[in-house]
């Protein structure tokens, strides 16, 4: 079992937990992920490693509550434990001094982009970061991102904080204003955001690294559930990725594959919510 030692609520639906997993912390690098499983009946889901402390044997995970497993994960508290934390999986980000780079983090994607931005900064890059979310409440880690960026642009879809814009708008302006200067773009966030970031950078011919979030089971190349089409070839996100050149990814195929278990996910969530309500009602009754 892997004990949760710290928990922080970053937004209503975004939580940060720090987990004891020394064998993962020992090897973790920016860009890699773990597979977690909450309990014996739980499913295996991938979560990007947002940070790690090698000496303390700790791994930081940040997740957005979207389905049954992430909602349940959000109810766990320090002292609770996860049944599985395995990793680090996938290839680390290729960090070099490229010159000027842009790191785009959308929603919960801000978490995994942070260690990459930090590593790029340490490698001597001029780091411009763009972070965005639907609204102010969903934003987090502005301060941490600012600390590792030379420039930071914050935007929200509804304008409740920072600039009212999608992340692609400031990105496009940067590419236009500093043509030839920007050597590389990283983009992590919802698949739809990464798709549009890739479309935005494509005309400027700037390499665009995305970190894909496909459905996985084992995470070691065994099942092939996570396969995506890259340049028309099936590649496994778990062992060939998770980072790919965004211009080569078949986004519509990825978006459709992410929907495959939608009905089942909905059913599992409803069932879980129902159980939670029952538990709450029982407790209330017991208390009264």
């Amino acid at each position, binding site marked *: 079992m892997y004990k949760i030692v710290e928990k922080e609520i970053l937004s209503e639906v975004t939580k940060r937990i720090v987990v004891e997993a020394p064998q993962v912390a020992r090897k973790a690098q920016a860009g890699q992920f773990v597979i977690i499983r909450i309990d014996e009946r739980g499913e295996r889901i991938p979560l990007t490693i947002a940070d790690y402390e090698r000496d303390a044997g700790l791994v930081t995970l940040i997740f957005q509550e979207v389905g049954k497993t992430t909602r349940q994960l959000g109810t766990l508290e320090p002292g609770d434990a996860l049944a*599985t934390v*395995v990793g680090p999986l996938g290839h680390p980000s290729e960090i070099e001094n490229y010159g000027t780079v842009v790191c785009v983090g959308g929603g919960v994607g801000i978490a995994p982009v942070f260690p990459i931005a930090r590593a790029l900064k340490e490698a001597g890059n001029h780091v411009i970061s763009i972070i965005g979310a639907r609204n102010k409440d969903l934003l987090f880690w502005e301060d941490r991102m600012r600390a590792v960026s030379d420039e930071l642009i914050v935007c929200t879809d509804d304008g409740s904080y920072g600039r009212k814009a999608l992340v692609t708008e400031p990105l496009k302006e940067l590419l236009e204003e500093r043509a030839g200067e920007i050597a590389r773009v990283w983009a992590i966030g919802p698949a739809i955001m990464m798709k549009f970031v890739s479309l935005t950078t494509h005309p400027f011919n700037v390499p665009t690294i995305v970190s894909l979030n496909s459905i996985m089971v084992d995470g070691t190349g065994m099942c092939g559930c996570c396969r995506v089409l890259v340049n028309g070839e099936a590649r496994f996100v778990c062992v060939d990725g998770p980072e790919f050149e965004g211009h080569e990814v078949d986004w519509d195929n990825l978006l459709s594959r992410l929907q495959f278990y939608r009905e089942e996910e909905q059913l599992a969530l409803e069932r879980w919510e129902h159980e939670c309500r029952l538990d709450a009602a029982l407790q209330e009754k017991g208390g009264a």
Partner: protein
Amino acid sequence: MSGLTQRERLQIPRQPMPAQDPEVRRGNFNEVALGFTEELARQEAERCLQCARPHCVEGCPVGVLIPEFIRALREGDMVEAVRVMKINNSLPAICGRVCPQEVQCEAMCVLGKRGEPVAIGRLERFVGDFELAQRTCPLECCEPTGRKVAVVGTGPAGLTCAVDVAREGHKVVMFEALHAPGGVLIYGIPEFRLPKSVVHSEVDYAVECLGIEIRTDHVVGRTVTLDELLEEFDAVFLGTGAGLPKFLRIPGINYNGVMSANEFLTRVNLMKGYLFPEYDTPVKVGKKVAVIGAGNVAMDAARCSLRLQTLRARQTGEEPGEVHIVYRRSRAEVPARAEEVHHAEEEGIIFDFLTNPVEILGDEKGNVRGMRCVRMELGEPDESGRRRPVPIEGSEFEMEVDTVIFALGTSPNPLVFAEAEGLERTKWGTVVADPETGRTTKPRVWAGGDVVTGAATVVSAMGAGRRAAADINRFLKGEAPW
């Protein structure tokens, strides 16, 4: 009854295995073969002629002392039967269920020349199950030697190797990438052929008796590398199997509803997807499933699909649907065990022979809606000795399907070879190892099972694990330096 003459023994018919009725079992995941009763087992054991030079043993990859255990069984001495069995096989309840006895021990049985061979596998299972329930003969190990051996992979090869090394008093640590030990026995072979409770008890029993440590959630090549293991351990055995799925290189393989048998079976078996939503991992099959391939894994995938369809039909009241095995060769070339094919047909799986998909077709939402297939005919024999299937020109047709499962074999997962310099592999990705000793080209590293041979059987992997263990033991004693 032990005073029977040979002639009387020859007159006893081979005892049939009690099994769930096909109509019933297609709607559940419970074990199909129910196991011999004590009476059936004794009766079957009476058939053995106790040959002075038994050929059956030669047919067994791990050399089980077959006539001896059968004799003890028919004399009613179960404890002795278990003891004899365990000399050469530490996982009898598993082997008795999944070994292809018809091409191994039973193929060599002298009774098979004139009639039906002794049902050695069924007797082995009977002994194995008795021991799991009674635990009369725990494995014992010698005094600790202070030497340490890492076993990578907890499937049949790794487990057998670990047991044989630990018996000599060496400390064994096993590394498993998934969250539960057992490898293919857990994620691959379905509950209805090999109940997971049998695997868990068999593994727990051996591990507890011998003080073997199992580190789950450790992906060798990522969490820890082979070179790091060599710093901590005196010897390393690689029994990582063949876990990488193959997809046909045809258009359309990324539509929703196309998956590898590995994914499908892992969802069903390891993650217990058939119990969704009690368990969180979903698994879904459509109304018309095509399983591509005709090996044992294809039969498992087809039979799991059929069960999921039947269970769904019970809930919704709709028709369950169809499951097809689509195979490019003919019935004669089917690589699956005859018994598995028989069970599949009994349950209602449809076989489409001499048929090969050339494209998977999708709808506007990205879901599978069909396959474009071509009819095949058999030409000249190929390198495997089987007649090569050749497409018949102009025979293309569309097959309406909504789920496609590829069961075309697997190859070793290369992840384990990250940072493993000097470990030679073949062009198929398998590890080069001495077939007698399991020694690889990298000092102090042994390998055996599917990672060396490519996908094969549970018991051949056990045989390789056992041979490697013997060599590791000699190496650690200083009798066989590297």
